[in-house]
């Protein structure tokens, strides 16, 4: 398995692990604000690059990185548009909603999880396909 494919697996595990841990904490603590601690493990997504001698990417690695980033941003844009207009259609465009601060913070983390997971999954698929 190529080094950068291992990184993609690592990042996918971090993204999935964060969601699983967050869900578990929500169930156990029943406090979404406290469950935000789960998002701290997202920092692990950078770990593979903190090596003294990180492996050099060759042209295939760079090509896969470029294509998987395009896929991830495309997927994120789709989610972004759905999340942007979905509540308007579901609740009505003039409806007032109160959003707690923790929910606002979670949106930022959720966006990063979507990008990380989509990019990792696309990279793994591209490495498998060649």
């Amino acid at each position, binding site marked *: 398995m190529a*080094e950068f494919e291992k990184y993609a697996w690592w990042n996918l595990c971090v993204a999935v692990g964060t969601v699983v841990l967050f869900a578990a904490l929500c169930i156990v603590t029943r406090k979404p604000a406290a469950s935000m601690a789960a998002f701290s493990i997202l920092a692990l997504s950078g770990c593979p690059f903190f090596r003294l001698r990180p492996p050099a990417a060759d042209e295939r690695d760079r090509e896969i990185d470029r294509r998987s980033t395009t896929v991830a941003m495309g997927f994120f844009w789709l989610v972004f548009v759905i999340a942007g207009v979905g509540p308007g259609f579901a609740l009505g465009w003039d409806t007032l909603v109160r959003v707690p601060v923790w929910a606002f913070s979670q949106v930022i983390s959720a966006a990063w999880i979507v990008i990380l997971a989509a990019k990792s999954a696309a990279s793994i698929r591209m490495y498998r396909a*060649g």
Partner: protein
Amino acid sequence: MPGKGEVVRNNVRRLRFDAGEMTQEQLGKLAGVTRHTIMAIEAGKYDPSLLLAFRIARAFGKTVEDVFIFDSEQLAS
């Protein structure tokens, strides 16, 4: 990237064995890429850049056209 009806085949695997059973790792080092990229090229799953094609050909002491064959009729026939 080849278009529809176009295929780039290569003789990398045969040339490696002709070159004293050179390993993919050794060829990768000579060409400046990883073993996995050489594997993908041999399997026909990845078409290298022109620069990498020249490096691989030079590693074997051959021309690019000795290593890579552009076949535009294979799928059409």
